[in-house]
């Protein structure tokens, strides 16, 4: 019953030499063929692997040498036509292949979607249904948090700007259509096409920069934050000391944050070392917090460093200080780990102290419920969740003794768990977050092209493609897009009897 053809990485990323990308849906073989150099996957026998190359859909350049396994439904996992592409396992390669598939017309699979399709096509046992529902359900609460993060991202900001321009255009066209006799100025075809060309140039530009620029740079962007003197620098040095290869070193463009690319037990991490904090922390502490906040805006993961000895000194009810409280309210909105440094200075019942800290942190933030159309709903983490996100370490000790780096290992273990466990399709994960936005841009670009080809067509027909572009850029369905337009019409124009 599904119409779309979906694709996703189906092996855990970041590990292993070979990765498998699965394409499933009615056009699986046709769409893969578009970017596959080798025998036609539509013509070769089903269930037989074919050697070939995957090309970039836009440039035709070879991305990777692969084995492709085309399979006709229903004898497949999902019951649909499927192609499995075995490629070289690096994240960079996987990501480029996925993007090429998106450009060819595939959609990015949602979490649990392959399994859902398998179930709906009668390929799974009745008892498995609940596990599937749990899996999809889990995605929702997670994606709400992710959505929050995305709102602040640089790419999101630009996409939302384009979306506004399109809404503006649509509203002007629609008001002329629905209120032909009112003294609202008629938008001319020339104005429509001028805007369309400008928007198309913007989406093209964004896609291009997303391909070559910083946005495609691999790895998890992690920001190291915390009050002065808690040991951020030591932790940084510890992590750097452990690195196998520094891939690159880029001074930040917009603020004086230094990015270090490192490979943490096989996980590519882009560590945003808030250099600014280190130089100014002795002078004005306030600035430190502000810098931390700024660097958090663009990251996938916050590493919050707390000083174990300070926890002790505040008595039985463990509360971080005011500044840290403010910081926590921001941090808890994003994926994060709490690094409790100087564990050797942790006195008394360490475990109780941490539980007490978790409880007070949890009590500091309250859940926001989701009102109509309110995108900023948020589920506050409970104490157990917070406890689970804590890592106890002594950075100084570990730096000195490379044979005993349990803390560091725990950090990389937790990062792996957060970002690379099981299903890679969680929208909160950086690989996908960006890919979704790119998918939106690709679809919008296609719709804009169609609109631009309609020169000479009446405006109500052009509006069909413009509306498609508008919808591609926001996660709204067709009817709610209509509502957005109607609301905008009435707020902007003076109409009525």
């Amino acid at each position: 019953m599904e119409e779309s053809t979906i694709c996703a990485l189906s092996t855990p990323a970041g590990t292993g030499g070979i990765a498998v990308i699965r394409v499933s849906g009615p056009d699986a073989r046709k769409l893969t063929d578009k970017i596959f150099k080798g025998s036609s996957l539509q013509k070769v026998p089903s269930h037989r692997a074919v050697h070939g190359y995957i090309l970039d859909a836009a440039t035709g350049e070879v991305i990777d040498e692969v084995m492709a396994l085309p399979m006709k439904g229903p004898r497949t996992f999902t019951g649909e036509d499927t192609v499995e592409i075995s490629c070289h396992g690096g994240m960079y390669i996987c990501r480029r292949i996925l993007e090429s598939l998106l450009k060819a017309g595939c959609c990015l699979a949602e979490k649990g979607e392959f399994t859902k399709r398998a179930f709906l096509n009668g390929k799974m046992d009745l008892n498995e249904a609940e596990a599937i529902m749990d899996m999809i359900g889990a995605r929702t609460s997670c994606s709400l948090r992710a959505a929050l993060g995305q709102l602040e991202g640089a790419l999101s900001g630009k996409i939302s700007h384009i979306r506004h321009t399109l809404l503006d255009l649509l509203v002007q066209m629609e008001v002329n259509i629905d209120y032909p006799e009112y003294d609202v100025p008629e938008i001319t075809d020339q104005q429509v096409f001028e805007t369309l060309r400008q928007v198309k140039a913007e989406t093209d530009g964004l896609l291009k920069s997303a391909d070559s620029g910083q946005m495609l740079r691999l790895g998890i962007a992690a920001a190291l934050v915390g009050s002065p003197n808690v040991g951020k620098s030591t932790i940084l040095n510890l992590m750097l000391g452990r690195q196998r290869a520094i891939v690159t070193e880029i001074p930040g463009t917009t603020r004086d944050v230094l990015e270090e690319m490192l490979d943490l037990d096989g996980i590519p991490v882009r560590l945003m070392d808030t250099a600014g904090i280190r130089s100014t922390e002795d002078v004005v502490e306030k600035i430190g917090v502000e810098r931390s906040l700024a660097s958090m805006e663009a990251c996938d993961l916050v590493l919050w460093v707390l000083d174990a000895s300070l926890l002790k000194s505040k008595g039985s009810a463990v509360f971080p200080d005011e500044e840290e409280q403010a910081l926590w309210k921001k941090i808890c909105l994003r994926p994060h780990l709490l690094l409790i440094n100087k564990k050797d200075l942790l006195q008394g019942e360490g475990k109780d102290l941490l539980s007490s800290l978790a409880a007070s942190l949890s009590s500091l933030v309250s859940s926001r419920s989701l009102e109509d159309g309110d995108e900023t709903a948020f589920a506050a983490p409970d104490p157990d969740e917070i406890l689970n996100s804590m890592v106890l370490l002594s950075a100084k000790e570990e730096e000195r003794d490379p044979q005993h780096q349990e803390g560091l290992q725990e950090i990389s273990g937790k990062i792996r768990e957060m970002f690379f466990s099981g299903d890679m399709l969680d929208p909160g994960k950086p690989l996908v977050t960006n890919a979704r936005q790119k998918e939106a841009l690709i679809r919008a670009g296609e719709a804009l092209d169609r609109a631009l080809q309609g020169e000479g067509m009446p405006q109500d027909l052009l509006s069909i493609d413009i509306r498609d572009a508008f919808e591609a850029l926001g996660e709204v369905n067709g009817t709610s897009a209509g509502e957005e337009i109607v609301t905008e019409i009435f707020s902007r124009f003076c109409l009525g009897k």
Partner: protein
Amino acid sequence: MYTEQAMDVAVIGGGHAGCEAALAAARLGMKTILFALSLDSIAMMPCNPSIGGTSKGHLVREVDALGGEMGRNIDKTYLQIRMLNTSKGPAVYSLRAQADKFRYKEEMKSVLEKQENLWIRQNEVVRIDVQEGRVAGVITATGAYYPCKAAIICTGTYLNARCIHGDYETLTGPNGLQSARGGLTENIASFGISLRRFKTGTPARVDGKTIDFSQMEIQEGDPVPVPFSFEDPAESLQRPQVPCYLAYTNEKTHEIIRANLHRSPLYGGVIHGVGPRYCPSIEDKVVRFADKERHQLFLEPEGEHTGEYYVQGMSSSLPEDVQRDMLRSIRGMEHVEIMRTGYAIEYDCVDPLELKSTLELKKIHGLFSAGQFNGSSGYEEAAAQGIVAGINAVMLLRGQEPLKVDRTNSYIGVLIDDLVTKGTNEPYRMMTSRSEYRLLLRQDNADLRLTEEGHRVGLINEDRYGRFLEKKTLIQEEISRLKTTRSLGGRGLLGDLLRHPEESYASLKEYDPTRPDLPLEVGEQAAIQIKYEGYITSQMKQVEKARKLERKSIPRDLDYKEIRGLRLEAIQKLDAVRPETVGQAQRISGVSPADISVLLVYLEQKHLREKKEREEANQR
């Protein structure tokens, strides 16, 4: 109380919804009775003297294609007809007529009177008798009990109505008529049905002989008017057309309004009902759009034999003397005399989330409602719901499938789906922007979309249906002919030429010597279908896709709390709306695509489990 004769269907209210509902039920062979507070108010137009316009014209043609009366009635009683939006694409061409509102209602009442199976009664229904969750009868203010199997509430703006002009208010319905205060609201509320209070308004009517029309811009009808009804040939429209006039407010008008704002019930807090955004009063416009130097007004004749003019654009609830002063500040109206003062009106209506898509109330078997009572606005929206409620009441009594109208086949479907799925916070007005398949839902093809369904339910007779099938064949033949015939002068296939933006069916005539002599609408229809084929095909694909989810039905008694993986908000919303299909569920605000996935898996699991249980039972 005494018992009157038993009926099948009772229609409460004789406005545009009530008329279509009663006619549909009676024409389908049901013993039907229509109650109106005053028989003089049957099919009355208490606001603007016009029918149709953008998207509303589409509704009228859809009502007509289903076998309704509004289109035919306006074709008999128009003062002027115009096709709007002709500079734009065919999807948004919109037919609009100025109506002789006196003749319109007289003509409609006469049609009702001649209708077999239809009784007309001046009386107020004050109670609906419900036995075991089913409609058993209705009771009038005079104590008459009419047993019936279904009832359709079409009370418009009459229920507990209150009219306000400035500091003066009356407990009347529209146009100074009696309001319905006999207890129907309380009776409906007693069934646990949630009610709302909405507000709307109308401008003053002025005396034409006190207006200097030479100071205004004249607006004539189309030289060759197009009929609304697919039944009426263009030649049958022979009425002389009457013009409208265009005028503007000015700075002085706005000053008068601003100086008297404190006397406005809207700003003084006297009116609590929710008013529509698309129909702001002039005081609203002046406040909200303060930088606008002038607002446009239309002077529209109310009838052929009256000098009354409707001042479109001047809706107001300011006191009478202020209304007079502001009207007199307008060029050409310096000496104008008011005949009827403009007013705001508040009335009781239902929360449309209480309705199924058949327009039956979820809580009471056999109780339907239509029109402004359902939270809509406008004569055309009312008529559209009226015919749907009328047909569906009959289908329910006959145990047959309800009328198939949905977002993919009609504006009527969009209207009803929006109301019952999203509810509304203001009187709902139809707009073409509300339809996601606008190109498919054109006014020119309303018959192609709905005649089949009108025939299935029995409102389109064999004679009309035969003519419809013939037209359909002619269109298909003309499409294939155009696609395969070469043009004179070697310009290629006619079908290909037609796709050029600058070409039209008419412009190609000279290159098309073998063109058969076809009715105008057949040629035009064929041309539209070829010219916009690419767009039409892609919208059709979207429709096909949407229909798959529309066909997946959800049991009415589903316990959403039981479904694992659904978010709390989704559970609450789904539980409140109780969507009939997965398609409808996905349009509820606050229900995410992930929730829909969970729902799909749950429904499949339920289906499998039930199947398994059946098999096991069979084995035993």
